[in-house]
């Protein structure tokens, strides 16, 4: 079973390393495959979105507000029509086999949409007719676990309760692929934890795949195997989470200010520290423009220290920086949150 290792250690130890996301998988082995998907609006464009999620894994879909996460998900669900490209869900074209695909997918939207006057029990009766695999006992048990009164009208439920109801409805037909569009957005920490805990319990099923969009990266850090970053309608990164965290590093080193002059300055000798730091900073800028062009997504010089986030860390890069800067750089891990911020700032700079 492909998902075994991922589920057990959530770290892909010894598996999938250095493998591009979805690489080496046949279409049938993919829970989700998007190729060159585009959508043009007057003020926004989704451009050439391409990524894959193998069956049995969880992918976090991260991006700032307005990046195109919801549009991508709505395209997958055929709620928004793509301008071009291919979308395959569980080996089936999402439009040619729309009904079959949706029978296999559980979807929770950004804002749960329900008939406000109806009750969870009514929804159970209504929705269950469309799914041969519907499990009523599971639905009732989930409502109970979430503390939702099945006879209460939806309009009397809080936003958190509506999200939980949406999740219960999406899970009760035992979907092979769960698509969640920012399900924890706007929820208080307690409800958010409840929702994530429920997700954690259902994703223990190794055959189930989850595609989970959010801008709260902590949620992804907890549960995702794969991560895809989207910004301004374009995919910036899509890979195994640990590979991404292995490639993205914070590199810092002291500016190469000439030591002799520092000594002069410390012993009271005349030295214009400001101009010497400026000279060192200029040298770094030139390095960034030439030898290290495009290496750092975001960088800054603060005081006597350069720091930058790279998406292409390797020991060769570390050696090259040591040689150019005259100092061994300090390499620190970054969080998905840092990566998201670097992507946004880097693109907006």
């Amino acid at each position: 079973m492909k998902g075994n290792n991922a589920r057990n250690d959530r770290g892909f130890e010894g598996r999938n390393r250095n493998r591009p996301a979805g690489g080496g998988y046949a279409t049938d082995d993919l829970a989700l495959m998007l190729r060159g998907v585009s959508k043009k609006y007057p003020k926004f464009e989704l451009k050439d979105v391409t990524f894959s999620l193998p069956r049995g894994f969880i992918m976090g879909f991260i991006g700032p507000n307005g990046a195109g996460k919801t549009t991508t998900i709505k395209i997958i669900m055929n709620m928004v029509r793509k301008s071009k490209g291919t979308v395959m869900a569980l080996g089936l074209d999402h439009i040619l086999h729309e009904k079959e695909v949706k029978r296999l997918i559980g979807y929770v939207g950004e804002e749960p949409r329900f008939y406000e006057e109806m009750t969870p029990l009514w929804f159970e009766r209504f929705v269950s007719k469309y799914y041969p695999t519907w499990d009523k006992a599971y639905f009732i048990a989930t409502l109970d676990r979430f503390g939702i009164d099945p006879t209460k009208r939806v309009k009397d439920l809080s936003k958190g309760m509506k999200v939980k109801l949406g999740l219960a409805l999406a899970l009760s037909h035992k979907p092979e692929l769960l698509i969640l569009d920012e399900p924890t957005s706007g929820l208080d920490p307690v409800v958010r934890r409840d929702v994530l805990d429920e997700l954690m319990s259902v994703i223990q099923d190794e055959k189930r795949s989850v595609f989970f969009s959010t801008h709260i990266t902590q949620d992804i850090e907890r549960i995702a195997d794969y991560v895809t970053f989207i910004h301004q309608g374009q995919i910036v990164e899509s890979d195994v989470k640990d590979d991404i965290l292995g490639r993205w590093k914070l590199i810092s080193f002291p500016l190469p200010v000439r030591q002799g002059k520092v000594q002069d300055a410390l012993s009271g000798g005349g030295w214009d520290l400001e101009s010497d730091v400026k000279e060192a900073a200029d040298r770094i800028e030139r390095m960034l423009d030439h030898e290290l062009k495009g290496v750092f997504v975001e960088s800054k010089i603060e005081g006597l220290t350069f720091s930058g986030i790279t998406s292409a860390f390797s020991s060769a890069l570390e050696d090259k920086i040591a040689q150019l800067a005259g100092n061994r750089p300090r390499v620190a891990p970054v969080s998905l949150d840092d990566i998201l911020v670097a992507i946004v700032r880097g693109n907006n700079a």
Partner: protein
Amino acid sequence: MIDLVYKDIIQNRKLILLYALLGGFVGLVMIASGSDGGGVFTAYVMISTYGFAVRSTYDEDKSGAYLFLKSLPLSDAAIVASKFLSVLAVSVMLVIFFNITAVLGAYLGASGIVPGLGSSPAARGALDVMAVLRGNAVSFAIVFSFALIFVGIYLLIFFWAGFAKASTYSRAILLAVFVMVMIGAGAIGHLPAVRNFVRFIETSSWLPAISVITSLGVYSILCALCIGRVKVKDWS
């Protein structure tokens, strides 16, 4: 698809019951007291059919529930056709109900059970149910047909441009039709040709069937146009 029609009816059951009670009561009293019921029926069918369509689309629009339906394994055609079918089903139900009350009103008029209700055309002797229905058939069929086409246009605008525009434009169309009929009746209603045409309509035996069949055809075409539109529409 039948599930979706059932859903629409269940969701709007209170409104349907209200229309049924209102129409039934007014129709019964009007017919039993001697009116032919045509004017009441016109207003009733227009209000109930249009009212149901507006209410049920308003609910969908307000809750954004079409996105919920789109997440289910349902085709676009089923979602659209079910709305057309539920409006048709409810209007037919209400028309049948109105006719039942018309017959009941005629019976009350004929039987003298309710004092003072004896001037109905059907009151001249024993109750002839078919005569009552035949007497109303032409005007009922034409009004029903007009209501059906009008609501079909409303749904077309709804699926094309959304609830707000459908609601605004349909009211404008209704008002324009009303004004045209009023002005037209005043301006040319006395002309012999018009009078002959009206008489021809009233006495025609095939017109009810033709008008209903035509309106159902137009209604189906409008439904097909909506399905075509929804297939390329973005739901948000």
